[in-house]
């Protein structure tokens, strides 16, 4: 018997009984949750949770606070020129800026990179995220945006453009919006690379990016309807 058959038949023989039905999980309809979901819908019961949003507070400030708590930072920028200026201001010593976005061309186009090893010298990587998650302070990136996946982790510093209108509340909302099988790689990135492995001291830049900067900027197509 092949290992596959042996395992499947051992599993079949030993399946615990009775079988348990699959529960619904919360999406935008909040199935299975009686009293709403996340910080916002529970404010009356959460007087002392630090960082919880005010009633009627828009999602964006909450997202920015959570991102900061995870070690990231964010800036509002008015347009592509302002985004370029911000990158120049934050990383004045950067030699190699490798970009996957048109707003900030950088010194190297990711489309010209053939092999991930070529990214070892990148000081700043720039990419656009299609989705942010407020409760986690996270941005979603896939191979479609990164082009070469290693851009997200070999770059010393990472800059992510994000449409402020593309922020959702919880991870449930996020998973409802993404199609996992459509990309070989997809990552929720919440702040920079971090470790607490030596006496629990939080250190950024363990192996991946040393910093994560989110620039809040709608894509050009939406800002300029021409």
């Amino acid at each position, binding site marked *: 018997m092949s290992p596959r058959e042996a*395992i499947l038949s051992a599993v079949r023989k030993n399946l615990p009984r009775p079988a348990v039905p699959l529960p619904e*999980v919360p999406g935008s309809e909040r199935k299975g949750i009686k009293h*709403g979901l996340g910080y916002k819908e529970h404010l009356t019961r959460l007087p002392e949770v630090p960082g919880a949003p005010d009633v009627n507070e828009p999602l964006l400030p909450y997202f920015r606070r*959570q991102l900061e708590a995870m070690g990231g930072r964010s800036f509002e920028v008015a347009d592509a020129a302002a985004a370029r200026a911000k990158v120049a201001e934050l990383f004045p010593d950067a030699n190699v800026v490798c970009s996957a976005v048109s707003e900030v061309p950088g010194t190297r186009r990711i489309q010209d990179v053939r092999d991930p090893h070529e990214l070892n010298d990148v000081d700043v990587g720039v990419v656009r995220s299609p989705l942010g998650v407020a409760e986690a302070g996270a941005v979603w990136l896939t191979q479609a945006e990164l082009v070469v996946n290693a851009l997200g982790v070999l770059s010393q510093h990472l800059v992510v453009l994000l449409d402020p209108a593309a922020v959702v509340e919880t991870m449930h909302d996020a998973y409802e919006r993404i199609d996992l*099988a459509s990309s*070989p790689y997809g990552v929720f*990135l919440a702040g920079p*690379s971090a470790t*607490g492995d030596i006496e629990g001291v939080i250190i950024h830049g363990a192996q991946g990016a040393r910093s994560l900067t989110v620039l809040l900027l709608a894509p050009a197509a939406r800002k300029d309807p021409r």
Partner: protein
Amino acid sequence: MTRPVDPERRAAGFIALELHESTHDRLVWGMRQNRDKAVAGVPEWEELREMASRIKEHTLTHLDHYLEQFEKSATKLRTHVHWARDAEEHNAVVYDVLNAHRVKSLIKSKSMLQEECGMTPYLQQRGIEVTESDLGERIQQLSDEPPSHIVVPAIHKLRTDVAALFAEKIGTDPKDSDPHALAEAMRQNARPRFLKADAGMTGANFAVAETGGFVVCTNEGNADIGASVPPLHIASIGIEKLIPRGRDLGIFIRMLSRSALGTPITQYTSHFHGPRRGGELHVVLVDNTRSDRLGSPDFWHALKCIRCGACMNTCPVYRRGGGLSYGATYSGPIGVILDPGFDLSKYRELPFHSSLCGSCTDVCPVKIDISDQIYKWRRVVAAKGLLSFAKRVGMSALGKTLAHPPLYHSAEAVGEWALEHLPRFLLYNPLNPWGKHRELPAVPRQTFRQWYIENRRKP
């Protein structure tokens, strides 16, 4: 019969290092406190726990179906799917793939399953250089020790230990024990290894049957580098890691890091569905006693575990004695109920390395009845005749005494007399564990029973 590991003796060695013990206790309890704060921010926590538990139970009661579905969806995405009945078969499959690609150097991220299989020594003996890329795992690899915690593998070490280790192994300044400098030194040391590696290996936190992909959660991003730089990525996945649907991840991802470290999510939550552009992806589905456990009404719920480590952080025995005292791949309360399933004789003492306080069960995000299972393992150990001599004699005497009131009352009287009159050396000696690290209580003037007869039985 395998010689049993002796957790008590091993823990005593750790407790003797006073600064290590107190620092470990403080750090691990700190994670528990951070967990509590994070959980307080999610008022629907109990609803999430119930859903997580039921999703896992559903998957495990339909596991054959979901394994086949996963294989089908993964294959459609051009992922090579392998199956392995046990550790040896897993290691052989991995070696065959590596060998076919002429891999000389391998960079891996943390995988408890690969630890369980003893994969690293297996590959090293066959000439493959294996480097752990998670900082804590690398510290443990350089120390030639297994991980002492499933989330923070080197949490039992002080910064000065790490400084001495790095000075010896990678040439850092032995006097510089600043964690920032140490972490930076390892970043510099690891980068060339990532670049020259011929293959990257990861484990998986979750495998999604519907989509044919898997999820790896890290804070360092080391799994992502290993998966995105070398051309070959192999992931080892225990068959209990399956969940049915992509949207089920919302539940588990919200709970995992909150339970582990108290953050809403790990820094990197990475999803792999088929090979990256220009790469090749293999997964190995591993049984290694999991299907046996599935057939055990008492113990199959342990397969729900998502490896968050919350039970370890809250455990008074783990916090004091450290993870290495368990002498096994899995430590802490979850280790106590997993390890005997691999080798009952070897790990027969572990179920007694617990106070049965039940805190592990309370914090478990997938509602595993950990403390009940610890108690049930004690019964298994006793039923198999594997109780140590001292426990057998002591338990049997205790059983008889408690079952016979007159015997109990005279034992009480003898005990009191002994506590008052016996010389210290007879009370505080190696045969009486209750005399270790503590003074026995002062004897009250009378027993409760005597007091009761005197005060309440009077007409």
